[in-house]
């Protein structure tokens, strides 16, 4: 029997506003900040305090909802989601339930099977919880509560169960992250937990319209974990059903080391959070005018930029999508193109996605930390195109700019790396190589054509790698031809 996976994603993205959702505490990086440094009576849930909505957080949420082409509810409601946990100061989370901020959005993703449209069910605002750390010291086990994160604005983006493969899940998450970064509302750093993705996965016989029992996967803290976790879970469920078993509704964790999901909590029916409208907050009213202002101020989004890159810079869809995923990369590319007038953008794209990304990956740094300015890369590219240095030299120079940040011209001059294009000089080198290697010439003339490649290498070696390969090739071809034509 063939199976189909049905997957929906719940994405929680912290909104990186200056202050928290309902109080004036600053939003800090809770992975590095001193515990409980950004806490006040309101986010600590002390008696008698009240929440006040951070309008900037609403604006950020609107940006995302509009970027996902959602319908915005002019009036949405906050609700209390009740449950006990030590990281939840009030014993309830202020969230949105029956009337969320936005509904009915969509996101188009590109997969190896082509474009797919994924519907977004809802986008709503809520507050994040604190963090627990479990400690064992002197034989005593206890937990520490850090409320720095408690009350940080959180956006929940829920997809319809429109995803069917691990690849689609990854592409959806990647596209969403890209949008969040373009909108400057979230860094998309899954390691730091500012973006958290929880897929719910079920499988069913292909062609069936009924849903199977679903499981939810938690603590996936990278895209790799997301893709592998989903793939594992799909396979696990298929195997259970094939063996005649039944999938249990449960929350499963991802074990990064063992590459498996494991049972965390079995759900007997739905959790009862006893939602009810938050009496401390009036309905959240978003005037049409405000929506229009936010819409007008939306930056160019990844999809539009990708299309523009393809059209304006004559890039293929792969290059364009790689360059537009990160707004900073796209900006870098465009700055380099601008600085290198007359150089084909495709050439610059190749340098960025090839050499530059390679160096960045090796060093483990992002584009923001890069010492190679777009102008420097443009200059380097120009030198190659205009034959001042050859490709290999350029790679070496780039590696040095990457380390030192020095201008390309300076490195080339200092190290005497300028390319030799003098035809007479190169012809002399060719003649020298030919006269010193009569045996190779003989075998070439006997029909062993590959000898010409070896001869090319010998000439380049004599030129210390700086000769223009085009000029060598021409001179070599011409002289070999002469030898062939010489009567024997």
């Amino acid at each position: 029997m063939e199976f189909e996976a049905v997957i929906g994603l719940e994405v929680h993205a912290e909104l990186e506003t200056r202050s928290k959702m309902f109080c004036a505490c600053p939003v800090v990086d809770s992975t590095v900040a001193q515990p409980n440094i950004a806490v006040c009576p309101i986010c600590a849930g002390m008696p008698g305090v009240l929440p006040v909505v951070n309008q900037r957080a609403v604006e950020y949420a609107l940006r995302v909802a509009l970027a996902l082409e959602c319908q915005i509810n002019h009036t949405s409601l906050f609700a209390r989601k009740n449950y006990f946990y030590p990281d939840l100061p009030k014993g309830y989370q202020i969230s949105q339930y029956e009337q969320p901020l936005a509904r009915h959005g969509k996101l188009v993703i590109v997969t190896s099977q082509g474009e797919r449209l994924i519907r977004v069910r809802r986008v709503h605002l809520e507050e994040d919880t604190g963090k627990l750390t479990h400690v064992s010291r002197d034989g005593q086990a206890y937990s520490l509560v850090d409320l720095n994160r408690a009350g940080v604005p959180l956006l929940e983006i829920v997809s319809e169960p429109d995803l069917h493969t691990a690849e689609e899940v990854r592409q959806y998450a990647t596209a969403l992250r890209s949008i969040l970064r373009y909108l400057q509302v979230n860094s998309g750093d899954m390691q730091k937990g500012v973006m958290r993705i929880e897929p719910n996965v079920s499988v069913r016989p292909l062609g069936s319209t009924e849903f199977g029992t679903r499981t939810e996967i938690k603590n996936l803290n990278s895209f790799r974990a997301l893709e592998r976790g989903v793939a594992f879970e799909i396979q696990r469920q298929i195997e259970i059903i094939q063996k005649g078993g039944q999938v249990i509704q449960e929350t499963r964790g991802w074990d990064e080391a063992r590459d498996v999901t494991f049972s965390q909590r079995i759900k007997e029916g739905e959790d009862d959070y006893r939602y009810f409208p938050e009496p401390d907050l009036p309905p959240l009213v978003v005037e049409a005018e405000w929506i229009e202002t936010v819409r007008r101020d939306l930056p160019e989004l990844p999809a539009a930029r990708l299309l523009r890159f393809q059209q304006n810079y004559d890039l293929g869809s792969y290059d364009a999508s790689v360059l537009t995923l990160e707004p900073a990369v796209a900006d870098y590319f465009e700055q380099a193109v601008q600085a290198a007038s007359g150089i084909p953008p495709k050439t610059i794209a190749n340098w960025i996605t090839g050499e530059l990304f390679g160096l960045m990956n090796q060093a483990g740094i992002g584009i923001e930390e890069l010492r190679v300015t777009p102008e420097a890369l443009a200059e380097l590219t120009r030198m190659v195109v205009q034959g001042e240095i050859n490709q290999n030299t350029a790679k070496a120079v780039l590696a040095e700019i990457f380390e030192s940040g020095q201008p390309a011209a300076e490195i080339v001059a200092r190290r005497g790396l300028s390319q030799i294009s003098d035809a007479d000089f190169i012809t002399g080198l060719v003649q020298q190589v030919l006269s010193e290697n009569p045996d190779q010439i003989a075998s070439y003339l006997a029909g062993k054509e590959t000898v010409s490649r070896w001869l090319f290498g010998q000439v380049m070696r004599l030129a210390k790698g700086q000769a223009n390969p085009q000029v060598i090739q021409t001179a070599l071809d011409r002289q070999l031809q002469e030898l062939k034509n010489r009567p024997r």
Partner: protein
Amino acid sequence: MSTLTELSLSEVTTGLRHGNFSSRELAQAYLERIERLDPALHTFLTLTPELALVQADQADQLLSDWRKNGGAAPSPLLGIPLAVKDILCVAGVRCTCGSRILENFIPPYNATSVARLRQAGMVILGKTNTDEFAMGSSTENSAYGVTHNPWDLSRVPGGSSGGSAAAVAAGLAPLALGTDTGGSVRQPASLCGVTGLKPTYGRVSRYGLVAFGSSLDVVGVFGHSAADAALVFAQMAGQDTLDATSVELPVPEFQPDASTKPSLYGLRVGVPGEYFITGMQPEVEAAIHQAITILEELGAVIQPVSLPHTQYALPVYYLIAPAEASANLARYDGVRYGPRQPAEVMWDVFRHTRGELFGPEVKRRIMLGTYALSAGYYDAYYGQAQKVRTLIKRDFDQAFTQVNLIATPATPNTAFRIGEHADDPLSMYLEDIFTLPANLAGVPGIAFPAGFDSKGLPIGIQLTAASFQEDLLFRAAHAYQQATDWHTRRPSLNQS
């Protein structure tokens, strides 16, 4: 010096301004009276004499500066003592909410109402007794013992703001703050023979009011007269950026008419038949009709009016308030403040802390509310209650198209004996039957003395107005108090 506590508020204000006595002397007089009389009454849970004297000295400084340099007259509340219900936060002062679960809780912030009164220069004497988390009508649910009614020590003062009401009635504070979720200001005001105002929902910031029923809770005030209460109201009312449900509307100033018969000409007063029920104390009914006659004599037009959904107020209230309370009280888990009952595992810490430190009435309401919100019951209980609440609100909207004020008894009976309702929560709940509807509708109400029964216990009348029309309540209650002297009567406490 003890005579200072017998002066009217306007006499005190005048005396302070003229320098006839100091705010310090005034505070000391009250503190001495508290020390003498409160052991029998138990109105205060925490006294703050050091704080009071520091604040009084600051007031005296301002008063003396003003006498020296002139300028705008200081607030009439400058240097005046205030008692605060122990459910409103005063920075640095223990706030128990009448519960063991907050036994040692010291808030680092002021309630906005408290902050605004402090800004006017009021002097805080201490924190008064309350039913645990304001859940009750007698203070019998306080974890720290019951408050006694100054008119009869064997009787309750009403509740939940019973400590504040009794303190004002006994002359232990000229003014006191309470909170009113279902009648917790008006009912004890009625039972203690003082004036108690419940403002419109949203009129006074709830910031720093430890929440019970968030959609119902209002900060109110007790005084000996409507004019006194109006001063405190004016100072604490108005929008607050810390409370998103506080309303941005101007607070009209109430100027009391000093004549003995201020005119109520032009006011229409509705009398709803639904509030004169069988089973209520006949003396109460008679007194209220008598009081309504006086309002008529002052020029008001009296007419019948109907609030047809009144009978549903009690069940609606006992679904909505406990539902909200069940969430509001979830934060008391022993993790961040308050006592913690140790246990091996986390869930047992919660279980023991909450199980052992909440009192029975609080637990009863948490369970009621949790049930009303549960999946499968929500629509039938909480959801249905919200719909009926809308109908009750509509009753008032409708009535206020015909009349300016609604006059009713504040309570069906005068003060009951301590322990009288101890085994029957429902009969206790019925004590608030006339005050609950105003909270559900959000409208303002005022209760004030309108006579005494044959046992010498105060009877209270309640006036209700449309939202944000507290000034009408003050006008009518003040006129009544100019024409009568019930509000000037004091219990005799010296022999007790």
